[in-house]
C-alpha cells in the first residue's frame, strides 16, 4: 500500500552533484513560493516512485518524479508509451491498484495526499482534482445516461437535489458545446460520437469547479478536427473554472500551443523540464532533441529525412545502471554508462535537464560545444530512382481508379432484413498512381478510405467505375493464374503488425510464405530471406525468432519485408505507422522512403495523420464522405489548400512549435462527420463548411443544389468546391 515517506528532501545521489550545477528538486528547506513570485504551488509532487510487482521482479514504472503546478497553469507531461507519465498522474489521484508501491510525496495546497484512505481521497477526487481520460467510450458507464453520470458527479460533492443537479448538468453540457442539451442529457454514451463523449467527460470534470484537471491523452483516439474542437473546449473549461491543467500526452504538437510548461519523461523519470519555449527551442537533452527531430511536420518546407532515435526504451524491470537513454544516445560517453544523470540546470541553461553533457548542448554549437541540431546524424535522402527522375507525364500509371463506387444497403430487422437506406461508403472516386510515386490518401475515420483500399485490393472492379492495375482493367483479368500474377505485383501492409503476423511462426517462415505460394524452390527461398531482413534493417541471423520477440517498429519492418518478398511494383500501406511511437515511426518512414527509391516502388499510403502523409507522399488525395475533395501535388495542396475541408483539416493539425502554434488561428469545424447513409444534397460538406456561411444566398443556393466536381486550379491540383480559393493555414 501507499506510504508517505520523508524522502522528499532529495535523491540519494544528491551528494554526487557536480560542481556548477544546481539541484532543482524542490526541497522543503526552500519554500517553492519564493521562486514563483509568491504564488504557492497548488500541486506539488516530489520524488514520486511507483513500482508494481511482476513475475520478473518489481517494475519500476516511476522513478523519482517531481513537479509543481501553480493555480491556473498548464503543465504538459510528454513521453512515449511506458515512460511512466500516466502512472504518475494516477498516483496523484490515488487510483493505482493496491499492489502498487507508491513512495514520495504528493501535496495539494500543502496537504499530503499520499497515504490518505479511500474515504478522504474520495472527497478530493472529482472535487479538487478532476480527471479527463483517454477513450471516452470505455470511460463512461454504458448503462447510465450521460445526464445520470454528470448528476452523480455533482451530487457526490454538492448538496443539490435531483432537479437542481439536472439543471446544472444541462448547463454544463451547454457549456462544453453539446447541441440541444435538454434532449441530449438523457442520451446514453453509445448514442454520442467520440468527440461528444469527450465533451461530456469534460463537463463531468468541471462539474465541481476543480482546482486541477488532469487530462490523460484527452484527444488521442479522436480525429484531428475533433481534437481541435476538444482542445478548444478544454481551454474554455479552464477559463470558466480557473483550474490548472496537467495534460499528459505523447503528442508534442498538442502541448506546444496549450501548455505553459512541459516535462519530458523517459524511462520513469523526467529528463527535461521547463517553459515550453525553452524546451522546444533550446532542448538540452538528447532524448528531447531526438523526439523533436523525429516528428514529421505539416509545415515542412522541403523534403528532408527524419532523424529517428534508434533502439527501444529499456525494460523497466532490469534497468541498466547509468543513463537509461545511453543505448540510444548518439553522444553517450563513458560516464553515461556509470552514473544516471540528475535533473539539473546546466550553466547557461534556463531549465533543468537530465544529461551529463547538457552543458555542452548549447543552441548553435560553437567552440567545444555540441549543436543540438546536428547530434543526430541526419540520414541522407535516398538517391532518386531513375523512374523518379522522369517527369510525371512520361511515367506509366500503375493504378488508375475511375469513378469507383461502393454502396452498402442499410438493413434493418433480424430475420427478414429490409433495406431502409444506402450507405455511400465510396461514392465516385477517381485517382491515379504513376510509377515511383506515392499517393497519400487522407481523411478522418468514416470518410471511406479503408473501403476504397479494400475495393482496390479486391480486384473485382467494384459496383461501378473501373480499377486498372498496370494497364489492365481488373474486370478483364480472367482466370486464377492471371489474377495471381496481378496480386504478386501489388502487396499490402496493415496497421497492426502483431495482428497480421502469425505469432506461431518464426519470421523466416512468415517471409517464405509468399515465396512458396508463388512457386519458389527451397534454395532460392533460403537465399532470399536474409536478403529481405537486411533490406528492412533487421539482423539476417534472426530469421528463426518469433514475432513477439521483436518490438513494434521491428514487427512493422517484418510486415514490410513480407510485402516486398516478391518484388511488387505497388505497395498499399494502410496506416502503417499509426500504432508506433514517434521516435520509432520516423525510422519506419525513412525505411519506406528508401525502399521506394531503391526499388522504384509506388505506394498508396492511407493515413489519418497529415504530417506523416506530408512527409512521405508526392501527391495527396483528401477524402470526405466517400469522395475526394482535393487532389494534387503535396506541396501545392499543403501550401495552397483550396477546399474548405482541407483548410480546416490542415489548420487543425497542431505544430510542435509553440510560437507558431500560439499565433495560429484555427478553422474550427462544427459538429461531426455526417453518416455516409445520409449525405447532404449538393455539396456534401455544406452543413459543416465554414465558407458556406460567408457566402451570399445565391451562392449558398448553388452549394445546396449542385454537387461540385473536381476542377483544376493549377497544373496538378484540383478541388471539388464551387468557390475554391487558396488559403495558407500552416
Amino acid at each position, binding site marked *: 500500500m501507499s506510504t508517505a515517506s520523508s524522502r522528499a528532501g532529495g535523491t540519494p545521489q544528491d551528494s554526487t552533484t557536480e560542481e556548477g550545477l544546481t539541484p532543482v528538486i524542490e526541497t522543503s528547506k526552500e519554500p517553492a513560493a519564493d521562486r514563483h513570485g509568491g504564488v504557492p504551488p497548488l500541486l506539488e509532487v516530489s520524488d514520486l516512485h511507483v513500482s508494481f510487482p511482476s513475475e520478473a521482479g518489481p517494475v519500476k514504472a516511476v522513478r523519482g518524479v517531481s513537479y509543481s503546478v501553480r493555480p491556473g497553469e498548464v503543465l504538459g507531461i510528454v513521453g512515449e508509451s511506458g515512460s511512466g507519465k500516466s502512472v504518475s498522474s494516477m498516483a496523484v489521484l490515488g487510483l493505482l491498484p493496491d499492489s502498487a508501491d507508491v513512495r514520495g510525496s504528493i501535496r495539494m495546497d500543502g496537504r499530503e495526499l499520499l497515504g490518505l484512505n479511500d474515504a478522504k481521497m*474520495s472527497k478530493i477526487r472529482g472535487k479538487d482534482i478532476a480527471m479527463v481520460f483517454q477513450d471516452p467510450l470505455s470511460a463512461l458507464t454504458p448503462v447510465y445516461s450521460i445526464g445520470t453520470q454528470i448528476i452523480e458527479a455533482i451530487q457526490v*460533492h454538492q448538496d443539490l437535489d435531483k432537479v437542481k443537479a439536472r439543471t446544472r448538468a444541462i448547463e454544463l453540457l451547454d457549456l462544453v458545446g453539446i447541441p440541444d442539451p435538454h434532449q441530449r442529457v438523457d442520451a446514453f454514451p453509445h448514442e454520442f460520437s467520440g468527440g461528444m463523449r469527450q465533451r461530456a467527460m469534460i463537463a463531468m470534470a468541471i462539474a465541481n469547479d476543480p482546482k486541477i484537471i488532469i487530462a490523460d491523452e484527452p484527444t488521442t483516439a479522436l480525429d484531428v478536427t475533433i481534437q481541435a474542437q476538444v482542445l478548444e473546449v478544454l481551454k474554455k473549461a479552464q477559463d470558466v473554472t480557473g483550474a490548472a491543467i496537467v495534460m499528459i500526452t505523447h503528442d508534442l504538437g498538442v502541448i506546444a500551443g496549450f501548455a505553459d510548461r512541459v516535462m519530458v519523461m523517459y524511462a520513469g523519470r523526467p529528463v527535461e523540464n521547463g517553459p515550453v519555449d525553452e524546451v522546444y527551442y533550446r532542448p538540452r537533452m538528447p532524448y528531447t532533441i531526438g523526439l523533436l527531430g523525429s516528428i514529421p511536420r505539416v509545415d515542412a518546407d522541403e523534403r528532408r529525412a527524419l532523424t529517428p532515435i534508434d533502439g527501444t526504451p529499456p525494460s523497466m524491470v532490469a534497468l541498466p545502471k547509468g543513463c537509461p537513454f545511453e543505448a540510444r544516445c548518439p553522444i553517450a560517453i563513458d560516464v553515461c554508462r556509470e552514473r544516471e544523470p540528475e535533473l539539473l540546470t546546466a550553466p547557461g541553461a534556463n531549465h533543468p535537464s537530465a544529461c551529463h553533457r547538457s552543458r555542452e548542448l548549447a543552441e548553435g554549437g560553437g567552440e567545444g560545444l555540441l549543436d543540438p541540431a546536428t547530434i543526430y546524424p541526419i540520414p541522407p535522402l535516398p538517391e532518386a530512382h531513375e523512374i523518379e527522375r522522369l517527369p510525371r507525364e512520361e511515367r506509366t500509371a500503375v493504378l488508375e481508379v475511375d469513378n469507383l463506387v461502393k454502396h452498402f444497403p442499410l438493413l434493418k430487422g433480424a430475420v427478414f432484413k429490409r433495406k431502409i437506406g444506402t450507405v455511400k461508403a465510396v461514392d465516385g472516386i477517381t485517382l491515379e498512381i504513376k510509377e515511383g510515386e506515392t499517393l497519400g490518401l487522407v481523411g478522418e475515420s468514416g470518410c471511406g478510405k479503408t473501403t476504397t483500399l479494400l475495393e482496390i485490393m479486391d480486384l473485382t472492379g467494384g459496383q461501378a467505375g473501373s480499377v486498372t492495375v498496370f494497364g489492365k482493367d481488373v474486370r478483364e483479368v480472367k482466370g486464377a493464374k492471371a489474377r495471381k500474377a496481378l496480386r504478386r505485383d501489388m502487396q499490402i501492409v496493415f496497421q497492426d503488425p502483431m495482428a497480421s503476423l502469425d505469432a506461431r511462426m518464426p519470421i523466416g517462415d512468415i517471409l517464405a510464405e509468399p515465396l512458396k505460394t508463388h512457386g519458389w524452390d527451397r534454395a532460392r527461398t533460403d537465399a532470399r530471406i536474409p536478403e529481405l531482413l537486411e533490406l528492412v534493417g533487421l539482423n539476417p541471423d534472426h530469421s528463426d525468432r518469433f514475432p513477439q520477440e521483436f518490438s513494434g517498429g521491428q514487427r512493422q519492418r517484418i510486415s514490410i519485408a513480407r510485402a516486398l518478398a516478391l518484388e511488387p511494383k505497388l505497395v498499399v500501406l494502410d496506416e502503417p505507422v499509426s500504432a508506433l511511437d514517434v521516435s520509432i515511426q520516423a525510422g519506419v518512414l525513412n525505411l519506406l522512403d528508401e525502399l521506394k527509391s531503391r526499388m522504384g516502388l509506388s505506394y498508396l499510403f492511407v493515413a489519418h495523420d497529415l504530417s506523416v502523409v506530408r512527409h512521405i507522399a508526392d501527391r495527396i488525395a483528401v477524402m470526405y464522405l466517400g469522395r475526394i475533395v482535393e487532389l494534387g501535388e503535396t506541396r501545392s495542396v499543403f501550401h495552397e489548400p483550396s477546399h474548405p475541408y482541407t483548410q480546416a483539416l490542415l489548420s487543425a493539425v497542431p505544430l510542435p512549435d509553440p510560437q507558431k502554434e500560439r499565433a495560429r488561428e484555427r478553422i474550427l469545424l462544427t459538429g461531426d462527420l455526417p453518416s455516409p447513409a445520409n449525405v447532404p444534397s449538393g455539396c456534401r460538406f455544406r452543413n459543416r463548411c465554414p465558407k458556406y456561411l460567408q457566402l451570399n444566398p445565391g451562392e449558398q443556393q448553388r452549394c445546396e443544389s449542385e454537387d461540385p466536381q473536381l476542377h483544376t486550379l493549377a497544373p496538378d491540383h484540383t478541388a471539388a468546391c464551387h468557390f475554391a480559393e487558396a488559403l495558407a493555414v500552416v
Partner: protein
Amino acid sequence: MGRYMLRRLANYLILVIVATSLAYFLAALSLNPRANFEAQKPRPTTAQIDATLKTYNLDPETPVVVRYARWVDGIAHGNLGLDIKGGSVADDFGRKVGVSIRLLVIATIIGSIGGVLVGAYGAIKQYRFFDRWTTLASFFLLAMPVFVVAIALQMFAVNINDAAGSTVIQYIGEYNPTLSGFWPVLISRLQHLILPTITLTLFQIAQYSRYQRNTMLDVLGSDFLRTARAKGLRRRTALMKHGLRTAILPIVPLLVYNIVLLFTGATFTETIFGWHGMGEWLVLSITTNDVNSVAAVSLFTAAVVLVAGLLSDLIYSALDPRVRFS
C-alpha cells in the same frame, strides 16, 4: 419496442408448438401403455384393455395423427387428457406445479443472489483466500452428482438431529400430513424445506458464481470504473453501482433460463427428498408409459422456455440501454 416483443412472442409460440407436437409424436409412438395394463393383477381382458386405451386416447390402432388431433382439441378446451390411472392430467399438473414452486422459490432467490455476490466478491478478491476457496468449492460441487451431495446432507442432518435430541431437520417429503393448524404446518414445511433448498442453492451458487466472477473481472479493469472513482465515488459504491450493475448484464439470460428450467430439471433433488414435483413427474410418466402426462410435461417445459425467453428479453432490455432501441 412493443412490436419487437410481439415479434419475439410469435417466434417463441411457433417454437412451443413445434416442440410440443414433436414430443407428443415421440411419446405416442415409442411408449407402450398396453404393457401397463397387461402387467396389472388380475390381468384385464384384451377387450377391456382395448376399451380403456380407447377412452384414454391411447389406442395404438387409431392413427397417431388422429390421436394428436384429439389431444390438441382437448387442450383447446382446457383438458389435458387422462393419465395412465384414469385421473385427470390437469389435476396432477396443478398439484405438481405447486410442489415445484414451493420447492424452488426460496432456493432460486438465495441461489441467484448468492451466486452473483460470491462471484463478484471473488473477482474483487482475485487470487486471495476467498476467491481461491470459493473457486475450489464450486468446481468440486459442479463435478459431483446431485445425489452424493443430497445424501451427504441427509447424513449431516441426522447428526444434527441426534445432537439436538429431536428431529429439527426433516429429510423426506414436503410436510407432516398428520399435523394441523397454521403454525405447526408452516413449521413442518420449513423443516422439510431445509435440505432440498440447501442442495439446490449450493449448486446454483456454484454455477452462477463462476459466470459472475468472469464478467466481473472484465469490468474491474474497465475505464468507466476508474472514471466513477475519479468522480469521487468511494471504492465500494463505484464497484456496486457501476461495476456490478454492468457485470450482471451478460449473465441475465443465463440466470433466467436456468431458473425457469429448474422447474423440470430438479428431478434428482425431488426424488431423493421425496417431493412430488414436475421433475419427478416427468421421469415417472416416462417409466409408466403415461403418454398424456409426458405430453403435458413437454407442453409445460416448452411454455416455460417461452416465458424464460420473453422474460430475459424484457429484463435485458430494461437493464441495458444499448439494446433498447434496436
